[in-house]
């Protein structure tokens, strides 16, 4: 251990008063027992729930994928009948998009954003708890339906009129629609949490141009959620309205429009891809910086690329509709926009390669997953450029070429970095390291299995195999490609098994991790592993983009936050100058009860209209309860003069830096 490191360990933990520490611990303590489980508002606990729940859905979605691959492993297979196959592929897509990818990315964000910006909890802790319960209810609702044979069967995109009242009678699509609403509420809640936390709760010194790239990705994602989700929520209300109360939004016979659904859905659906993918870029930046021992090259270019991606991501949705009879000139604009989005992605890839080029590479499992990301995502990105072209898209749209493309983008672009991130942050979550050897097995099996599964699909698509088919004729010539894909799926399943064993084993007998086992730069590594319930005893201040690397012994800390109540420091948006202290609400049962009331509204509502008035009454009651319980002291306080190391000093030294 170097001299510098010893210093850095001290820097953020100056003289700690034991009595104050106990007080702080008691103040932030999570309530125990079942009630405590339902009441907690700690962002780390809730984020862990998001991550674990989403991972369970990932396993379920993966099992559905395995069943599909079994069915398609040979032509004319009879393992699944078309009805069950349709249910399984719809549930697979829905699960992976709504119940796995978005929540797990937000979950990791909700865990680390407060730690990285140096605060004690997210901005609206109770709403955060509410968001998780809503998400959980939505997921349980979908899977209850699935196991009762009323799972969705009109695809994760549920195109009308197929999903309309005439062609999808029964409750299947209603359950799908309401599940969408649940998960979108949860996503919106998470987005609001992250934006507010980042903009108002950063530690002094962390001006906007010093925010870690990880946090930037979360901010951009959250803004995209806020603009994209309302479109699909509108759609997911109009569809059940068509189905349940005979409106005709999408019924051409009554003046509705089937294409309206596609516009609404893809206006959300395309940004959704970036909502999943952009957080992964944050994982990659964190991992690359740590394992190359240098800051990511081109911070400004990276941030601008992220923001550009966020904007352009909203101008692409029509490329999902090139085969519809829309005017050709209009479609060409979307070709331009769709190709344009490869520019910011390209800039980021180039910057990362430059970082690797000039760094000192430590080939640990997280970085290996990131290198795997480069190989796979580049292919996915390039096939995406092809799909942006209207004429070429007319050939490969809705074929296995597209299936290959988006798995390359989403598994390559999001799941590989996600696994890297889990290896990277597992020590912070649990205090234990994940096994490196098993990590390599996991990587290689996953990498080989992935390419074996999805690469042949490019070829299948060009050879004319459409998506969403439950079977195919032997004379089509698709048998070998499909068999290869099915074998690859088995290898991927094995890889995930290796990962699960690795996690369980490491939890029990894993090597104990220190506070900062990788020598990383961001603030979450300055606290113990796992972090204390209050995150920071003294909020740190930062004087650069790589706080832990550049901090000195004399780097000041923030003092003067109460240990008696759940206080956080509120700072201004641009420069993170301290504004005031704010008391966050503590544990409460009301978010859970409100989630139940909202859950009642949407689940019972598809069986009887009474669900709505009853749900409205229950929600009102729950909201009364929620707002009745007041914090121990006043919400907003004037900033007292700090006692030992002053905030003013902190600012001064920052200006000096």
């Amino acid at each position, binding site marked *: 251990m170097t001299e510098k490191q010893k210093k850095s360990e001290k820097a953020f933990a100056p003289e700690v008063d034991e009595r104050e520490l106990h007080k702080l611990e008691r103040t932030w303590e999570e309530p125990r027992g079942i009630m405590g489980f339902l009441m907690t508002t700690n962002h780390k606990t809730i984020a862990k729930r998001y991550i674990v729940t989403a991972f369970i859905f990932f396993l379920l979605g993966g099992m559905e994928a395995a069943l599909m691959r079994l069915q398609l492993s040979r032509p004319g297979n009879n393992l699944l009948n078309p009805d069950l196959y349709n249910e399984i592929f719809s549930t697979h897509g829905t699960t992976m998009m709504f119940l796995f990818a978005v929540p797990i990315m937000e979950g990791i964000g909700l865990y680390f954003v407060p730690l990285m910006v140096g605060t004690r909890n997210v901005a609206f802790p109770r709403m955060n708890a509410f968001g998780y319960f809503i998400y959980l209810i939505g997921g349980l609702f979908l899977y209850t339906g699935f196991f009762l044979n009323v799972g969705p069967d009109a695809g994760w995109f549920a195109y009308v009129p197929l999903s309309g009242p005439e062609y999808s009678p029964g409750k299947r699509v209603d359950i799908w629609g309401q599940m969408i609403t649940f998960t979108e509420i949860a996503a919106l809640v998470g987005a609001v949490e992250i934006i507010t936390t980042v903009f108002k709760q950063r530690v002094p010194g962390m001006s906007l141009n010093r925010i870690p790239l990880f946090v930037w990705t979360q901010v951009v994602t959250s803004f995209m959620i806020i603009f994209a989700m309302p479109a699909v929520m509108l759609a997911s209300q109009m569809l059940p309205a068509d189905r349940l109360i005979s409106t005709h939004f999408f019924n051409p016979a009554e003046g509705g429009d089937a294409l309206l659904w596609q516009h609404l859905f893809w206006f959300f659906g395309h940004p959704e891809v970036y909502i999943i993918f952009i957080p992964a870029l944050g994982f990659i930046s964190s991992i690359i910086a740590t394992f190359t021992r240098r800051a990511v*090259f081109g911070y400004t270019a990276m941030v601008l690329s992220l923001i550009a991606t966020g904007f352009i991501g909203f101008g692409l949705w029509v490329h999902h509709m090139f085969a519809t009879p829309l005017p050709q000139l209009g479609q*060409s604009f979307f070709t331009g926009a769709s190709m344009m989005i490869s520019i910011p992605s390209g800039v980021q890839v180039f910057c990362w390669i430059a970082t690797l080029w000039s760094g000192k590479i430590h080939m640990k499992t997280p970085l290996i997953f990131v*290198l795997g990301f*480069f190989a796979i995502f580049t292919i996915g990105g390039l096939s995406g450029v092809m799909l942006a072209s209207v004429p070429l898209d007319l050939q490969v749209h809705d074929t296995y070429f597209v299936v290959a493309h988006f798995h390359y983008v989403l598994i390559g672009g999001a799941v590989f970095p996600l696994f890297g991130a889990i290896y990277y942050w597992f020590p912070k979550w649990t205090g234990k390291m994940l096994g490196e050897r098993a990590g390599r097995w996991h990587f290689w099996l996953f*990498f080989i299995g992935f390419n074996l599964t999805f690469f042949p699909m490019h070829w299948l698509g060009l050879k*004319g195999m459409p998506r969403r088919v439950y079977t195919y004729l032997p004379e089509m010539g698709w048998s070998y490609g499909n068999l290869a894909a099915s074998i690859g799926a088995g290898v991927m399943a094995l890889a995930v098994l290796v990962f699960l064993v690795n996690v369980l084993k490491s939890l029990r007998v894993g090597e104990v991790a220190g506070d900062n086992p990788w020598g990383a730069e961001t603030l979450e590594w300055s606290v113990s592993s796992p972090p204390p319930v209050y995150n920071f005893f003294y909020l740190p201040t930062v004087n650069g983009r790589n706080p832990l690397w550049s901090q000195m012994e004399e780097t000041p800390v923030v003092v003067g936050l109460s240990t008696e109540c759940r206080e956080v420091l509120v700072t201004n948006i641009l420069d993170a100058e301290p504004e005031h202290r704010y008391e966050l609400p503590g544990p409460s049962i009301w978010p859970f009860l409100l989630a139940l009331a909202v859950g009642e509204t949407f689940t019972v509502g598809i069986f009887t209209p009474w669900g709505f008035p009853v749900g409205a009454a229950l929600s009102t009651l729950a909201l009364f309860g929620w707002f009745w319980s007041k914090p121990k002291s006043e919400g907003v306080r004037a900033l007292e003069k700090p006692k030992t190391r002053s905030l003013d000093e902190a600012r001064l030294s920052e200006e000096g830096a």
Partner: protein
Amino acid sequence: MRMMKGKLLTQRGALALAAAWGLMLSGCGGVNSSLNSVGPQAARIEKLWWLMFYVCSAVFVLVMIALFVSVIRARQDTATRVEIPATDEPELKPEPERERRMTRVVVGATAVTVLIIFVFLVASFFTGRAISSPLYAPQNVLTIEVTGHQWWWEVRYDDATPSRMFTTANEIHVPVGQPVLLQMTSRDVIHSFWAPNIHGKKDLIPGKSSTLYIEVDHPGMYRGQCAEFCGHQHANMGFYIIAESPEDFNRWRDSQAQPAVSPVTDSQKRGQQVFLTSTCVMCHTIRGTLAAATEAPDLTHFASRQTFAAGTLPNTRGHLAGWVVDSQSIKPGNHMPPNSLESDDLMALLDYLENLK
């Protein structure tokens, strides 16, 4: 050792990908392949595909080489490698000269990206314009109406003379070398018409009309399939485009315009009675008889088709018998009810249907 593994990672990956890419290259040919074009539209798209394929492959290889080299370089940099990076001092102040060089490279790479995208955009635009209109003889266009149903294709040939208009299903005959305008819509849910050898796909949307210009230059039988998920039997909603010489096409067209041939043998006559007195007439049409429903394929010249059940089964007596009795076991969820016929009646019905040339 660790480093070696890292290097192998990218090497092995690249080898596997190269092998797979090779597989893709060899994957041309076939009657349902977009890389085996038989008409000007598909040919233009195929050209665009190869342009993009080669450029993108080159980009991929370059990116992977850059990644390789950076990983190899880093190995040289860290001769004193350690297990945990934490003990490796981070570089806080990157060397400015090197950073400037890298900035230039990144800007250059971005500029090349922009350039490539611009070329793609222009190529794509002109290809798109070329394939959306009849290429060579716009005045001599044959118009065919295609209507999608769950899960079959209704095909209607228009003519100025009403008696020469007729409807058939799932097999679209076109003359070689003549542009054809497909006017398409759907009766129920969204379908998508796609014959990869001939053109890209076009969605059939209820309440809207879509058009597609196609032209086939080589005689043959090409397969197409519905490409938009449309319910239970989306997988088995195929069709054939049969391109033949103009003389053959005209002969076929003349014969299709005729009403159905009358039954000759006793068995065929009995078969017609079976057809007209059972549920068949609720959905099917046989021109020249009282059967005139339009829910299901027109059977007037059923025996002249080479396949049935939307390109799923060859048109043989055995398959037909199985289909008539229990189509649900062949295409579960399709809209044809099972028929419990006496075996004599079934044989007579088959005789009758097989005679509908």
